[in-house]
């Protein structure tokens, strides 16, 4: 029986693995199963290709986490330049790469309050490849200007800045960040998405080719690695997610990630 084609979520995971190519140490925050799967796939691919070893630190995992100095160690490690890539979400993300994890409305008594900024205001400055990842891609998330800057996309001249936004991956497509502009350029649209839909769902202006490329599906080897080894590894930290994923790929029709 031929393998069913890649689902929308598998395309996200494979895209993350591509964005992580060449990194040595990737950290993944808590409650982030898709970034964790992408990092595990990147590790498996590097191993298969005989490339240098890729370390992963998954917060919330026992097996895939080697920190022993408490919750400060991730930040110390990032400050020392020992972490190459990390993922940030965002209740709001704007065209200048600013991220808002605090809420909607005027601070502090906001209309909507989210949990808080976590480590973003530090990690965005210290980790070179921060991948902004949010499945929901609507004009309420991708805004012209965020209501609160948890972490700024770029900094003024003279400010110590070793890291920042590298890419923005959503349920609709992949953008790369240009810090000199500063702004996003649409790299590819996921299967089934159009440029018109993308403009409609995005509150900020972005650069793009006249006919943007389609996000490439994985080859057979990569897909097999993802559905085998990676899912097994993922099951330790995210048992429910891994189980649901298995059901989805076993002959079930691929589902759209966003509507």
């Amino acid at each position: 029986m031929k393998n069913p084609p890649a689902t929308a979520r598998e395309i996200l995971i494979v895209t993350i693995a591509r964005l992580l190519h060449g990194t040595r140490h990737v950290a993944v925050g808590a409650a982030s199963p898709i970034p964790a799967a992408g990092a595990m796939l990147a590790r498996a691919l590097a191993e298969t290709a005989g490339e240098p070893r890729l370390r992963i630190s998954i917060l919330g995992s026992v097996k895939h986490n080697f920190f022993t100095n408490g919750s400060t160690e991730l930040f110390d490690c990032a400050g020392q330049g020992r972490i190459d890539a990390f993922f940030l979400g965002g209740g709001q993300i704007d065209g200048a790469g600013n991220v808002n994890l605090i809420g909607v409305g005027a601070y502090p008594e906001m209309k909507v309050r989210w949990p808080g900024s976590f480590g973003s205001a530090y990690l965005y400055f210290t980790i070179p490849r921060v991948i902004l990842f949010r499945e929901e891609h609507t004009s309420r998330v991708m805004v012209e200007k965020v209501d609160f800057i948890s972490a700024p996309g770029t900094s003024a001249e003279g400010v110590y800045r070793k890291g920042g936004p590298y890419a923005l991956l959503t349920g609709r497509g992949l953008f790369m960040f240009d810090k000199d502009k500063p702004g996003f350029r649409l790299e590819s649209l996921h299967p089934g998405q159009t440029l018109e839909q993308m403009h409609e769902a995005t509150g900020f202006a972005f650069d793009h080719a006249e006919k943007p490329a389609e996000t490439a599906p994985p080859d057979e080897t990569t897909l097999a690695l993802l559905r085998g080894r990676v899912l097994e590894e993922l099951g330790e930290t995210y048992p429910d997610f891994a189980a649901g994923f298995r059901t989805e790929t076993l002959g079930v029709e691929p589902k759209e990630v966003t509507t």
Partner: protein
Amino acid sequence: MQDDLDRLAAHVKSGMRVAVPVDYGGVPMALTRRLITRGDVTDLHLICVPTGGLQVDMLIGAGMVTTVETSAVSLGEAGGAPRFNDAVRSGRIRILDATCPAIHAGLLAAQKAVPFMPIRGLLGSDIQANRADWQVMDNPLSEGADPIVLIPAIHPDVAVFHAPMADRAGNVWIGRRRELAAMAYAARTTLVTVERIVETDLMADELTAAGTLPALYVTDVALAERGAWPHGLWGNYDPDSTELRRYAAAAKTAAGFAAYMAETESEIA
């Protein structure tokens, strides 16, 4: 009747700055419930190290908190923290938003007994813009301009946490959860609940001594089996996600919160 939890709880007074651990780090829920039941404390300033969860939400819901200094408060996979979110939206509590390493830096300054700790990042964020207590200075060791943020030392009056074990001398085994030691170094009083009290000396064996917070930093210890429930305790038990979801649903309103607290009190007493 007075018991060990009451003895610990009596150290916590109105207006104190209380350091509390991250939701997976050993949250003293049994002690927290006892503080709420006693009902004699108000106006607390909570310092989340570096984020908060159910404990913070419950203390806010019980009306015991005036200020929360934190990098985030949530119930993790069970969603947002309902009493926290409501209190921030309505302005009932003062929120001091931070970022995780800034809280670690403030505690480290207290540990070193220096007035502040410099930290990278933060510049240009609205977190920094809203923290009048954080100063920006030019790095005096740099030739060119190099602005850097100074985080004042954080001195909690009390640090509270739950750990797997202590010995009779009050030495507490914290394993690799070093931020619990950081809290204790910075705080004037440290109160610890544990799953079990062992008859051996944790300091006598190099293997346990390396992960032990010496009694020097520990004010008092009380036994509280499953004392982190419904949060989990590393190496001992997983979080009770069903109970966390039940709380998240109930505490959406103040009345629902009160009903939940009344109903679950008998279970933990």
